[in-house]
């Protein structure tokens, strides 16, 4: 720490394209998640393979009578859990996910599909803008791909240890992403998000006629639906950790940087 309160300076951190596509993506993914759960509720069960063998789902949410009352049950593989009030049965209704997790809140597959496909287009176009800019403008190579040495086990172990103690780089050292951050972002932008698009397209009978290998890539249409659901869950997991990290690393400065592009650093301040 420098003793004198040295002047904070603002440095450019995120490009306009990254900021715009980031917040568009947040909005699109939120709508896609909630409307996706509405669609899931029309048949709250998942299968592996091409087809649904109705008495052998690997995940299912349903209700059952217990004495005078109804209970919500969730089956995952060989296990069945009681999930009344959240999954299977909530608000006195038999439904997979509860009203607060779906768009719209009331049961409407038709409305859920409208939201989903409109925002799926927005999500895909936004992703194309982001990827073009990241490739052409050098953002991918400069800021996201790990540098030589960053992937060495020693470096990764040191970073993991620092993360576990919630110790983050400060000042100028925080201007770039750390390696774990880079790997997490890459896994999302090059892994999970494209996977959502591909498994989504695999469920379209129209696309299947043109690209029959696409659903087969995932083991069949019902497998694609399962993977679509699981990767949505992984995105939620990423976002939870992402938000915790933003909060731990200094929410005001990171958020300002993601909105205005400007990141505050105090020269000489490093840890």
């Amino acid at each position, binding site marked *: 720490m420098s003793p004198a309160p040295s002047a904070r300076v603002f440095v450019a951190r995120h490009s306009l394209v990254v900021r715009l596509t980031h917040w568009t993506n947040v909005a699109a993914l939120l709508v896609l998640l909630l409307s996706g759960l509405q669609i899931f509720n029309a048949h709250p069960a998942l299968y592996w393979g091409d*087809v649904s063998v109705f008495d052998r789902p690997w995940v299912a949410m349903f209700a059952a009578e217990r004495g005078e009352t109804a209970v919500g049950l969730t089956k995952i593989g060989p296990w069945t859990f009681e999930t009344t009030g959240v999954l299977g049965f909530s608000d006195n209704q038999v439904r997979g996910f509860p009203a607060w997790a779906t768009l719209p809140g009331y049961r409407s597959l038709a409305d859920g599909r409208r939201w989903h496909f409109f925002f799926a287009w927005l999500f895909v176009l936004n992703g194309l803008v982001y990827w073009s800019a990241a490739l052409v403008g050098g953002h991918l190579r400069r800021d996201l791909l790990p540098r030589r040495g960053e992937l060495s086990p020693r470096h990764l172990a040191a970073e993991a240890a620092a993360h576990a103690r919630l110790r983050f780089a400060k000042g100028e050292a925080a201007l770039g992403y750390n390696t774990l951050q880079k790997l997490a972002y890459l896994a999302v932008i090059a892994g999970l998000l494209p996977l959502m698009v591909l498994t989504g397209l695999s469920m379209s009978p129209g*696309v299947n006629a043109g690209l029959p290998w696409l659903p087969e890539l995932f083991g069949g249409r019902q497998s694609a639906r399962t993977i679509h659901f699981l990767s949505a869950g992984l995105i939620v997991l990423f976002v939870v950790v992402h938000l915790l990290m933003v909060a731990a690393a200094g929410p005001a400065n990171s958020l300002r940087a993601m909105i205005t592009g400007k990141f505050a650093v105090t020269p000489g301040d490093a840890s």
Partner: protein
Amino acid sequence: MNRRRWLTGAAAGALGAMLTACNRLTANAGVQQTLARAEGLTRRAQRLVVDRKALAQEFAAAEISRDFRANGSISPGDPDYRALVESGFADWRLVIDGLVERPMALSLAQLRSQPARTQITRHDCVEGWSAIGKWSGARLGPLLDKAGLKPQARYIVFHCADTLDPNVSPALGRYYESIDLIDAYHPQTILAYDMNDAPLAVKHGAPLRLRVERQLGYKHAKYLMRLEAVADLAGIGGGQGGFWEDRGYEWYAGI
């Protein structure tokens, strides 16, 4: 403790307000219209990328589902339809009319002697599930050629025998569907009379149902009575081109 309770209450309140806002937004006609725009984009994009004659995937006999679910009407109560079932569909005729040069009425035996196709395909329900079945039926394209479409004809409307919503007028409650000529002339588009090598069961649409393989299950109208060639869909049912379309579902169900 108090603060915690206050915070939980505030969070629940905010969530409730957001839910109401989302529901209001969904019910708004302008929002609906905007969201529905995506359908045209999807249809055009799919038709651009996928060849018009590209075949839906076909499967092996061993892959046929043993638990093919029936949805929508599974035992229509309409008296006219019950009478047809009683007589083993002896008096049933498929009417083909509208914008055609030679309107006709075909018996099941006549349909079975038309150019036919057999296919083992995957049926994808809008609800999310899939099942594989084997279908045999008369190809729609040659039938339409026989009837002679007039140049103004743009859609084929499928009028069905079953009332799926008894709480509205028959015009709105009776099942119907429609497809355009691209799908009507697709080689896998057939009027199926057999499923898994046996005559169609009542729950699957006896005596005749549409198979339009590159779209979702609700397009595959069951209990067919009449095919009508039309120039536009406005005057029929609720005007959106189908029973479910009148209730907010996409007319183009390739997704």
